[in-house]
Structure formats: structure tokens, C-alpha cells
């Protein structure tokens, strides 16, 4: 019994991680249609920012080390967002009508960002020590629920909730949705699509930074960590269906649960193979993913 509970929890935990790496993409790819292959590197930037904040705290304020994470979260968000904003201004802006080209250009960006990270922080991994209050876990009915995994689960739920509120309740968010739904019409109604694009892309990138910050709790921090997550993130978004956040949520937890289940009964390698094969098969059956925006247009 405890094994079942542990595995279900592990599934949700994996789902929460996948969701985290995919939220930003749900905005930049799902809503805006930009294939941002540098998304993984924006995650990396978030992770390194956490490291930098930790180093600064260790040097100047070692007595309040326990709280560095609360500073790291906004720093990771804003640095990644700023980078995304710059990227949009310089590069992506010219490529909205050429989605496949954006894929190639952002791939180039990802190579450059990796090399820059290697130059600044060195090739080896760096260590981020999680704050002490996240050590350990709660024990319920013989099952240990690590605080870090719970923290990430809560963190991602809050993030997605905040994003949802932003997109549906605030004027700025509504403008983003208007532009992504019908760019020309939005433009006619007086919305500056250029500004909105830049905002939306910055927000998507900011969420990638948050993901990077959260991932430091569980995984490695090195120049190439982005490459571990990028394909998974895209799979989550296309499985969930573009254009709706709820699709991404379902896609992430679906993949998380199914793949932990398969990993438990087979091996990690086979689980990965079967998971991707299943996604391919599923999309043959439902090409627009789990949740799709209904449309009558043909192209």
C-alpha cells in the first residue's frame, strides 16, 4: 500500500516538475506560437541565478542563509524575463510569421547561452545547497513526503494560478490573449501588439527562470541542464494542446503519473521509450492534444 501511495506521489511530483518546465513554454509556444529552443537555457539561467544569490548571501549575509531562496525566486524570474525580453526585441520579433525559422534561430541562441554560462561559471557543475528548512520530509503512514517535492508542488500550483489570474483577470493579460487569438483584430482595436508580444515573451521566459530556481532543489546545475528538459517540455505542451493552460497542466501530470508507473514496473529506459511512443500514438489519434481551442478555420 505504501508503495502505491509513494508512487502516486512520485508521479505528481514528476508531473509538477514537468509542469514547471512547461509553463513558460505554454505561454511562448502555446499562446504565441514561437518554438523557443532556448527555453531550456532560460531554465539554466534561473538555476545559475539561484546559485549567484546563494553565493552573495554566503559572502555578505551568512546569518540569514535560510532566506536566500526567497530572494533567489524573484531574481531568477526577472533575470530570465529580462533576457527573454531582449531576445524578443532583437530576434523573435522578426520571426513571428516563420515559426520553423524561430526554431533554428533560438537553437543558435541556446548554443551561445550554454557557452557563455561555461565561460562565466566554468564547465563543472556548481552546487546549490537548499535552505535548511527544506531538508527532510513529513512521514505519514510510513511514507516519507520530502519537503522539497511538496514545496515544488505548491510552488508550481501557485505559479500556474498566478499566471491564470494574470491572463484572465488583468487588462495586461487580456491584451496578451487578444493578440494571440487574433493579432490583426487586436491591432485594429488599438493594442500595441509589439509591446504585448515583448511582455508575453518576457513572462514566459520568467517562468522558465522560476523553473530553474525550483530545479536546483532536486537536480544538477550546469551549462547543459537545459538540454535535459527541453524536449520533455515541448512534449507536455503539445500533448496538452496549445492555447489552454489547463491542457498543459493535464499533460504534465498525465506524463508524470504514467511514466512513474511504467518506470516502477519496467525500467527507466523502457519507461522513457514507451512514454514517447505513447505520446506519438496519442497525437495520431487526437492531433490537437488533450484540450484544444475549438476553431472552424482550416489552415
Amino acid at each position: 500500500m505504501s508503495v502505491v501511495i509513494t508512487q502516486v506521489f512520485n508521479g505528481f511530483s514528476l508531473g509538477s516538475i514537468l509542469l514547471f518546465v512547461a509553463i513558460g513554454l505554454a505561454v511562448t509556444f502555446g499562446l504565441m506560437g514561437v518554438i523557443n529552443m532556448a527555453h531550456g537555457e532560460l531554465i539554466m539561467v534561473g538555476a545559475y541565478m539561484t546559485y549567484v544569490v546563494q553565493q552573495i548571501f554566503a559572502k555578505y549575509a551568512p546569518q540569514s542563509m535560510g532566506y536566500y531562496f526567497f530572494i533567489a525566486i524573484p531574481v531568477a524570474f526577472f533575470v530570465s524575463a529580462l533576457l527573454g525580453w531582449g531576445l524578443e526585441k532583437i530576434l523573435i520579433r522578426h520571426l513571428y510569421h516563420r515559426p520553423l525559422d524561430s526554431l533554428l534561430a533560438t537553437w543558435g541562441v541556446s548554443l551561445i547561452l550554454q557557452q557563455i554560462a561555461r565561460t562565466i561559471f566554468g564547465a563543472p557543475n556548481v552546487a546549490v545547497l537548499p535552505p535548511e528548512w527544506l531538508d527532510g520530509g513529513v512521514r505519514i503512514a510510513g511514507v516519507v513526503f520530502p519537503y522539497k517535492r511538496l514545496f515544488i508542488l505548491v510552488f508550481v500550483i501557485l505559479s500556474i494560478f498566478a499566471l491564470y489570474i494574470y491572463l484572465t483577470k488583468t487588462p495586461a493579460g487580456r491584451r496578451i490573449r487578444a493578440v494571440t487569438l487574433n493579432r490583426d483584430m487586436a491591432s485594429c482595436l488599438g493594442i500595441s501588439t509589439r509591446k504585448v508580444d515583448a511582455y508575453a515573451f518576457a513572462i514566459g521566459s520568467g517562468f522558465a527562470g522560476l523553473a530553474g530556481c525550483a530545479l536546483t532543489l532536486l537536480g544538477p546545475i550546469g551549462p547543459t541542464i537545459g538540454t535535459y528538459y527541453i524536449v520533455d517540455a515541448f512534449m507536455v505542451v503539445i500533448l496538452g494542446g496549445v492555447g489552454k493552460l489547463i491542457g498543459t497542466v493535464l499533460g504534465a501530470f498525465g506524463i508524470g503519473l504514467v511514466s512513474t508507473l511504467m518506470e516502477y514496473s519496467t525500467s527507466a529506459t523502457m519507461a522513457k521509450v514507451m512514454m514517447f511512443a505513447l505520446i506519438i500514438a496519442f497525437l495520431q489519434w487526437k492531433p490537437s492534444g488533450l484540450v484544444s481551442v475549438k476553431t472552424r478555420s482550416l489552415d
Partner: protein
Amino acid sequence: MTKKGWLYWLFFLALFAAPFYLTEFRLSLLGKFLCFAMIAIGISLIWGYTGILSLGHGVYFGLGAYCMAMYLKLESSHGRLPDFMEWSGVHQLPWFWKPFEHPLVAISSAIIIPVLLAAFLSYFTFKNRIKGVYFSLLSQAVVVVFVTLFIGKQEWTGGTNGLTNFSTVFGFPLSSPFTQIILYWITVCLLLLIFLFSRWLTVSRFGRVLVAIRDGENRVRFLGFNPTTYKVFVYSLSAAFAALAGIMFVLQVGLISPAMMGIIPSIEMVLWVAVGGRSSLIGAVIGAIVTNSAKSFFSENYPDIWLLFLGGLFIGVVMFLPNGLAGVYQSFKQRKGQREGKTHEAGSHVSRSVGGF
């Protein structure tokens, strides 16, 4: 023969003559790049002409190469079990390895298996009208499946090490310069054949349907064509080119591993075509050669920072040369033509194809 025909032949003649003016090492590099050029022609057919961006061509390349490598491995093991199987705890040759003792079986399955896979995947995908970005990402998922599988099944595929350390092909030692030059010439011939065939295809009625599919698939459908058939055919054809490239690659480089069918090589393949000009076949060939030469050059001279150059190349090409090197020349000629007041055809489909799809 027209002037045009002359220069085509001159171009291939220059390639043919390469063993006389390149060192052995540079020749082996050029041979490798020409294999890549074959893939590039296939990608140009599906991407530039038909508007399908495949990020999964590493798989077809890899499968072709693996089939050939299985034959080479068995030949160099002289009837014994291949070395990697021994240390993976396999005591008998698996049944599906057995037919690969025969070179003809190996070569034909090196083409047939990738083509069947491509036809199978593309039939369902295109029938379900999955296109554009979705197709690209799905093809990437196929790469993940195959790479993980090939790494995981070490006892059958050699795992991450892949298949390497071959000694002979059809009894000729692979390391001798003579064999290498013959293999190089075979590569040039194959490239020439592929090029001529693709050219014939693109100027035919078939090629025009492909371009029509790229520019308005639904209109083509309404006109009574079945785009799925066309797309499946051209996609399988490009898989066949990639497989052929795989065969020649493994013969010349003497190594195939899952890393070469991975996501990064698959994306790089598309880059070659983007650099050369996606809807120009010769552009694709030249793109493959130029990009890889540049990569070799930068990584030899600036081993620490060459990735910056490569990344910059990606961005630069997409931003400033949407139609690659071929496109630069196009627009240059057009402007010149306008200045001189000549009347041009409004540009070939090459210059109209800003955007790919």
C-alpha cells in the same frame, strides 16, 4: 550542351578530382561532408519544396548506417561473436543479426528499413493532417524513442559506444588509402545521381505539386489531388537518401553510435540546408559542405569558443539570409536586373518562398 550543363559537370568534376589535390585527412573530411550533402538534398526536397520540417532525419541516417555497420562488424569478427556482445553477456548471435552476414541483405535492408519506417510514420501523421510545428516536434519524439532504445539495448546495438572498429569491407582493408579513395568516388557518384534525380523530380509536374502543397495544402486537396500520397512519397524518398548517406558514412568514418542519430545532429542537418538555401538543391549540397567545413575550421582553431560561432551562424542565417546562400545571390541578381531595366520572370519559386510554409 549548354553553358549551364558545363558548369554542373565542372562542379562534380572538381569533387571527383579532390583526391589529387587534398591530403588524406582533408579528403576523408570531404567524403564525410558529401554524405551529409546527400541528406541535405533530401531535406531540401521535403522542407524547401514541400514545407515539411523534419527534425528526425538522424533516425533514418542512423538506421541505414547501423544496418551497414552490422555487416561490417560481422565481417571483421570473422565468424566469432562481435566483441561488444561478448562483454554484454550474449552467447549467441541474435537471429536478426544473422542475415546481415550477407552484404546484399545488409545494403538493401539499410535502405528498406528506414524507408518503411518513414512511410509508416508519415502515412499516419499526414493522413491525420498533422503538419508544421507539430510534425517537427513529433519527429523529434521519434528520435528520442530510437536513441534511448539503441542505447538501452546494449547487447544488440553496442550501446553508447555504437559499432566501431571495422577492418575490411568485401575483403578490402578499410584503412588503406586506396579503399578510401574508391569509397570517396562512389560517394561522389551517388551524390551526383541523387542530385540529378531530385532535379528531374522537382522540375517535373510532381515537383510543382509539391510546391503547391507547401504554399496551400488545402487548395491542392480541393483541386482533387491527395496531398498525403505526395507527402508520404517525398518524405520516404528523403529518408532513403539519408539512409544511403548513412551507409557511405559508416564506410568512410568507420563508426556509428546513437549520438549521431540524436536530436542535435538532426537539427544540424536542417541547418545545413538553411545555410545553403532551402529550396535550392545545389544550395543544400553546398550548404552541407560549407557549414561543416566552417565547423571543422572553427573547432580546430578556437576549440574553446567555437560554439559561439556556430550559434551565431544559426541566428545570422535565419535573420539575414532566409533563403540561404542561394537566396543572397537571387536577390542580388534581381536588384541588378531591375537596375538594368531588364524584365525578369518575377523570380523563381525560390525567392517567393520567404517563410518556408
